[in-house]
């Protein structure tokens, strides 16, 4: 991909990231952190891509480890966030 396209995506995403969470009550700090934590679990996609084109046992072994860790991050992250937020239901 063109470097300028990548830089544009990066800069715009930075601003979006700043904007969406700029006003959030302290009550939601923990679930928000946990949710953002789960989102970076999509590194799983990267781990699957590198596992696909691993050509040596070393590469494959490391890639498999990465998939295990990334799956824990992503799935565990969303489940634990949901459990935190379950407590808020029926409010107001």
């Amino acid at each position, binding site marked *: 991909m063109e470097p300028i396209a*990548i830089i544009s*995506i*990066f800069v715009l*995403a930075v601003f*979006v*990231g*700043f904007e*969406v*969470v700029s*006003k*959030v009550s*302290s*009550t*939601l700090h*923990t*679930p*928000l952190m*946990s*949710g*953002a*934590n*789960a*989102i*970076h*679990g*999509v*590194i*799983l996609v*990267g781990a*699957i*891509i*590198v*596992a*696909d*084109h691993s050509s*040596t046992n070393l*590469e*494959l072994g*490391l*890639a498999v480890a*990465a*998939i*295990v*860790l*990334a*799956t*824990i*991050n992503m*799935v*565990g992250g*969303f*489940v*634990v966030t*949901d*459990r935190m937020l*379950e*407590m*808020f*239901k029926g*409010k107001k």
Partner: protein
Amino acid sequence: MSRTLYDLIGLAAGVAFILALKGLSHPKTARRGNLIGAFGATLATLVVFFYANPGSSLPLNNLGWILGAMIIGLSVGVPAARKVEMTQMPQLVALFNGVGGGAAALVAIVEYLHLGSHATKAEVIFTVFTVIVGCVSFSGSVITFMKLQELMTTRPVIFPAGRFIIAATLVSVIGVGGWVVAALGTTPLLVLAGLSLLFGVLFVLPVGGADVPIVISLLNAFTGLTVAASGYVLDSVLLIIAGTLVGASGTILTRLMAEAMGRSLFGTLFGAFTAKPQDASGTAEERPVRSGSPDDVAILLNYARRVVIVPGFGLAVAQAQHTVRELADLMISKGIDVAYGIHPVAGRMPGHMNVLLAEANVPYDQLEEMDEINPTFSQTDVAIVIGANDVVNPAAENTPGCPIYGMPILKVANAANVIFLKRSMRPGFAGIENELLYDPKTMLLFGDAKASLTKVVSALKAL
């Protein structure tokens, strides 16, 4: 599947993540926001199975390994997230963040090994960045986990010449990073990973217990950036968007948390280097305290007009949220004005108490934030502090140089009477003595918060 379709679906997942973060910022939409995020992540994961590299055929190579690894991850992550106690959630989040950082570092290493000498300079630089930050995030998160789980001391760990060792480690990390870019070898990359892991440990050790949540949030933002950098190397728009979003929102969140605690980010991270030995820590000698029985507490409450309950980590540990609600309901039925004073960082993470009390169906309008409740303490007859310490410690206001100095506190000292429910005289998470415990208007009720509250409830019923 064509590359265009694949990228469009990736974009859809990216939009889902933006909506997820937006949703998570408001109480009403938070749960839906999280589900949207989970949907985006699932979509992104499924679609990668249908798009391999150009030229290679479906299904993916090593499919068995990939699916097997995902099943292992699922069977570890889901039960851990389901079974964890509310009290231990902060450390679980820290751990999940750490494994994410570790995964990003591993992905970068594999791609580096794979590309070998075909890697462009830019790719190598991004790889180096991912390995450094991913490893720091991993080992740093493990240390925060150990601090929160109390597997190690929660106080700042400061060793002689600590700052020089840390600075030297950082310089070597950067130096070896430059070596990798210049020499393109496997060995330098592994040395880099090792040094970065070490740096992560050294970086988090001096952070005091009360500041740990801020560090978790910062490491979370770090992991986001590593994901964005791997997105560049792997040519994945989705990873760039998702990683950057987390990096940016995580940075803002870290700052918001630091503000809620009245700390500067710089002070949190480097405070241990500049802080003088605590003045209050030397005063651990035996001093008289006034301890009371549950009956004494019940009598005090029975004749109060206004009572403020200040919950802390002790409430979470004892799982006393239902009992505290029972006590509050009983007092309300006696015509006593009851409110909960919620410090933004009571417990081990911002919002911890709100979550816990919500579980016990405490009405939202009884929970008052620090700024609302503080002016009312002077009209309050009794403040009941349940397993909280640092968030009501006047040292934050009057002892310059102590680790929590400058943190806004709940001014329970202004109430006519203060009752502390404590397990022991042990100081709070930040390890600082609390002068308020020795104040003549303070009464201490020792024991497990739930057991103590149950006794107070039955004593109050009997009156």
